[in-house]
């Protein structure tokens, strides 16, 4: 069985780091600053798209929380990415309504087309694939969200067309 390994130790972007540290500094005013760990990790993921090891080190230092504890939290919640996501994040809804309307086939199409499994990134780094439970668009089932955009009433054929649009855009 493989467990997640530490990701690449590239020095984190200075400007983003300054923003993150400012956010941490605000939480230090609170009576229980430690309780903001999850909020801080959320902020870090917003900034970097995932949780790079050097960023977790910085969080540990700034909050006085041992890295092992941060690692425990970061690996516990599926929300946190420990590897860099693709340029476009595809969330496929696997909720009841979407599933009944064929989300399983859409997922299979995505896996075949992108040659990745759920939780992975394509070789060219363009897409990553993650499951979602309900996106609140059951009327359009089955739906997929790519970044912030919802694509509904999908068929396998339509799904491939959408992917191709993104690919074309990326080539420009």
């Amino acid at each position, binding site marked *: 069985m493989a467990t997640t390994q530490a990701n690449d130790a590239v020095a984190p972007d200075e400007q983003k780091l300054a923003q993150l540290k400012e956010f941490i500094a605000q939480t230090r005013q609170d009576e229980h600053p430690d309780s903001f760990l999850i909020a801080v990790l959320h902020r870090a993921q917003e900034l970097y798209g995932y949780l790079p090891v050097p960023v977790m080190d910085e969080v540990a230092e700034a909050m006085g929380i041992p*890295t*092992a*504890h941060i*690692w425990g939290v970061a690996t516990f919640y599926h929300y946190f990415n420990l590897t860099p996501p693709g340029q476009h994040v595809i969330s496929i809804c696997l909720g009841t309504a979407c599933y009944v309307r064929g989300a399983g086939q859409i997922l299979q199409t995505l896996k075949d087309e992108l040659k990745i499994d759920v939780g992975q990134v394509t070789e060219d780094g363009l897409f990553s694939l993650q499951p979602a439970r309900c996106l609140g668009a059951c009327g359009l089932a089955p739906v997929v969200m790519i970044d912030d955009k919802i694509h509904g009433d999908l068929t396998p054929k339509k799904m491939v067309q959408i992917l191709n649009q993104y690919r074309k855009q990326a080539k420009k």
Partner: protein
Amino acid sequence: MDSNKITITINDQQYKVDPGQTVMQAADKCGYRIPRLCYHPKLSIEGACRVCIVQIEGVRNYVASCAYPVADGMKIYTNTKELRRARRDIVELLLDNHPMDCHTCDRDGNCELQRLAYSMGIRQRHFEGERKHYEKDLSSTSVIRDPDKCILCGRCVRMCSEIQGVHCLTQAHRGFNTVVMPAYNLPFAESVCTACGQCINVCPTASFVEKNYTQDLFEKLNDPDLITVAQVAPSVRAAIGEGFGLPPGRNMEGQIAATLRHMGFNYVFDTQFSADLTIMEEASEFLERVQSKGPLPLITSCSSAWMKYMEQFYPDLIENISTAKSPMSMASAMIKTYFAEKIKVDPKKILSVAFMCCTAKKYEAARPELEVRGMRTTDIVITTRELVWMAKSAGIDFVNIKPEKFDEPLGLSSGAGAIFGVTGGVMEAAIRTAYELYTGETLIDIELNDIRGFKGVKEAKVMLDGQELRLAVAHGLGNAHQVLEMVRKDRSRFHFVEVMGCPGGCIGGGGQPYPLVNSIPLDEECLKLRAQALYGLDREKTIRRSHENPDVQRLYREFLGRPLSEKSHELLHTHYKAKLPRGIVSPELKIV
């Protein structure tokens, strides 16, 4: 008289007990021992394993007795048919995700899970489900991590953070995929692990074991070209008997010396001798710093886990650390120089083996900073546990063997050398010698009771020629953290600080025998008995001060010159430097 007591019923019998305790604690005092696994009295309550469930009248579900408070009038059942079955099922389910390799396991016969399964009456396996499989972490010089054997009781994680303050381990991921690992799933060797081995001590299974060097040693003992030289740490003799079923607290040094010779060692020396040597150097260093206003407090450096902790967590205190090497490394340096010259042998032909109560000594032995004239000085480190196994495997009647003495010239020790193994002992030994070297007078009351015992942090004052010296002693790295924070805030608060990495000092080391059947890991009563064995050794000796050890005097006369001489500095002193990954000191730590 009993006005504060409450009445509870356990299995239809009435008992008067103190309020404010858990059902398990109350039952313990009434002659019950509810089966348990993740519970340890020194650690926080996890309530994870559910083995200690009991039935309480009026409560719908079974409750974990380790986490449930007693109340007046409570009716508790600990042994109903349903409970026994539920408990057995719980343990069976634990076993379901555990390898079925007891007879080839490192802890066969010493395993808490095995004992528990036996006492639950598990004679066949009913459940067969998916079983986890991960690679072992073999990266560390000292500790092996095998997640396959882990039952996720969390004792190691709590030990590492709550008692040791190292916070190396965490339970990462969730559910069936949960694994105990260091941050970022780093190999142990690259983590903040201090190699103290306390995770091994508290692990109920073989998920943590020491890196075993016994086969290597057996092989080398058969090499006719090697001169094999052993040294034995003080705490090994105080605990090894437990590995053969003897009660704790018997001094077995004679049996150890005889056993090692039976195993084929050419010379058997005593680390207590070099403890005396350490005191000569360290006490002199202390006096020099007091007189020349050098960096104070002086902080002891003989605990290897503590040294790694210091380099990662407190590198700002490096100038305060004594440059004197540990007794093990001093003995090894003397074996490969002074002794090699004496017996006219090329030191490269000498195999220097240290028998230690410690897993971190395996790490220390491999440190390049401790090399002497380009040579590694301690070739192999064997823990007390490994020695127990070796003696059994070699077919030696350890318990009944005729005791023998250690060899000269590195075998004679003072009482001060013996107490090195107990928290406070190094300080006490150093003060005995420093006082007399400084004042030229005899210290009458040489037993420093203020720094004896198992309080986490102990403080004392001694008068040295009109000057008050303030001393502090800490054992367990979490307690060390308390003292070091005091030092960080006010460097003039103490003159001399002793730190031992393990609870109780070396007697509670990470390489000591697994607990006896009716005991628990790091049981304080057991530690007290081991300590008494060493204090007893001290009291029996006519020579109780390191500087009066005639063989130490001879070593200085014939070889080293005087303490802190150029040669001493070359062979007996070293320097440390900051190491990564940097440890994060958690502010929540409390004294235990």
